[in-house]
């Protein structure tokens, strides 16, 4: 680790590694810092991703893909199963390999990668951010940079230190727990989503198979609901009931900001990406693709700003503007739908499943499912159509 870089990226998840790689590709000297001992673990993620989305950002490597998904099934509170008619297929990733590879790709572009490096503060000179304070293997370092990219995940303290409002309201935080379990028997080509206020109030429970005998089973519920009963308890009850013989190989906790679109993601000398910038889709909680797209923009803008020797908020706003254009209206749409969907009662959900089940398979589309579920919200129909037909 040297004393000076053009750009420091805090956090080596998919967002951080991508921002670092693209900035380096565009000529910047980049330092990528990760607080944990190894990139890619622990995996705090259900690991599902759409094929179209993934291929938009990167050519998938076979070793990233644990399993191919052919269909999504939605399970209503009364047990009715709706198989969603859809042409896009999906993947269950091996996030450990995926994250590791993204960091490796950054390294191949000349990015200096340092693990076990904890960033605990920003350095200011004459009111401008000029670096970060780092604790690495018991030693304190001051690293001078032109731009700090905060990719520090759900905690998002880097942004807060610079005065950006990254803290999340309880109602907008999905609080999650996931177990990777074996000794179960599943249809490996289906991703199952359970919607029920008994199983996962203000969210959903997922069963994402890695093969016939291994799956990520997790749930996310809103922080408001979690106040009354712990997500871990909901998940234990579900697994004991549905998969009593399951062997639990891993348990991870985590949070996903399912928050309104964050307008202000830059300030003088600082850019936020990924969960730190609340870029996950608030309806689904999925964030890998959006984070990587945003980070590509951020890395490029940051490298150019360094070259021009102008790291002002005004200059870096090019990233915020491009990101708004890329995802602003789609994010706001998803947030509106989330607000309505997670207020549905179990009766609403059962009614929806019953009505959809009567339709022919090719009419059991995600658009029709949402239209039926949100029949009391005709104003949301344009949102539903735009959200899922793009």
């Amino acid at each position: 680790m040297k004393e000076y870089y053009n750009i420091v990226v805090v956090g080596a998840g998919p967002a951080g590694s991508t921002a670092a790689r693209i900035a380096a590709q565009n000529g910047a000297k980049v330092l990528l810092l990760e607080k944990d001992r190894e990139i890619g673990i622990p995996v705090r993620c259900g690991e599902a991703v759409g094929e179209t989305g993934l291929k938009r950002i990167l050519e998938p490597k076979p070793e990233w893909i644990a399993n191919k998904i052919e269909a999504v099934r939605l399970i209503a509170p009364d047990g009715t199963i709706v198989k969603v008619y859809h042409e896009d297929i999906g993947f269950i990733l091996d996030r450990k390999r995926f994250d590791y590879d993204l960091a490796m790709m950054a390294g191949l572009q000349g990015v200096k990668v340092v693990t076990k490096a904890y960033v605990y503060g920003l350095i200011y000179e004459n009111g401008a951010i000029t670096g970060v304070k780092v604790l690495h293997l018991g030693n304190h370092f001051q690293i001078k940079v032109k731009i700090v990219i905060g990719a520090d995940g759900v905690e998002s303290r880097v942004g807060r230190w610079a005065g950006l409002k990254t803290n999340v309201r309880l109602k907008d935080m999905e609080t999650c727990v996931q177990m990777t379990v074996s000794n179960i028997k599943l249809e490996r080509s289906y991703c199952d989503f359970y919607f029920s206020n008994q199983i996962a109030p203000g969210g959903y429970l997922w069963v994402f198979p890695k093969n016939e005998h291994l799956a990520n089973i997790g749930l996310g519920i809103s922080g408001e609901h979690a106040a009354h009963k712990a997500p871990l308890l909901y998940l234990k009850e579900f697994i004991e009931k549905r998969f009593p013989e399951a062997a639990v190989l891993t348990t991870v906790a985590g949070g996903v900001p399912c928050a309104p679109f964050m307008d202000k993601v830059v300030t003088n000398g600082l850019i936020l990406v990924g969960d730190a910038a609340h870029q996950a889709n608030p309806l689904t909680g999925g964030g890998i693709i959006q984070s990587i797209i945003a980070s590509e923009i951020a890395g490029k803008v940051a490298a150019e700003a360094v070259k021009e020797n102008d790291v002002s908020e005004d200059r870096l706003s090019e990233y915020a503007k491009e990101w708004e254009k890329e995802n602003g209206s789609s994010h706001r749409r998803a947030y509106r739908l989330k607000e309505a969907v997670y207020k549905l009662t179990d009766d609403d959900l059962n009614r929806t499943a019953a009505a959809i089940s009567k339709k022919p398979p090719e009419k059991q589309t995600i658009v029709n499912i949402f239209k039926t579920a949100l029949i009391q919200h005709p104003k949301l129909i344009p949102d539903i159509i735009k959200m899922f037909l793009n």
Partner: protein
Amino acid sequence: MIIVKTDLCDFCGICVSVCPVDVIELFEARLVIDQQKCTACLNCVKVCPIRVLEFDK
């Protein structure tokens, strides 16, 4: 004050994000709360997926 049951903690950082006064610090395997500055809003206690935090009057 907020008690951290470190043995149970998964160090996921969700509590850090909902703290309105930014007094929680997460290291790789250590969670530190500045009790002097904590306003006892209990957001962190409520949001924790695995109930690591407890409020003790």
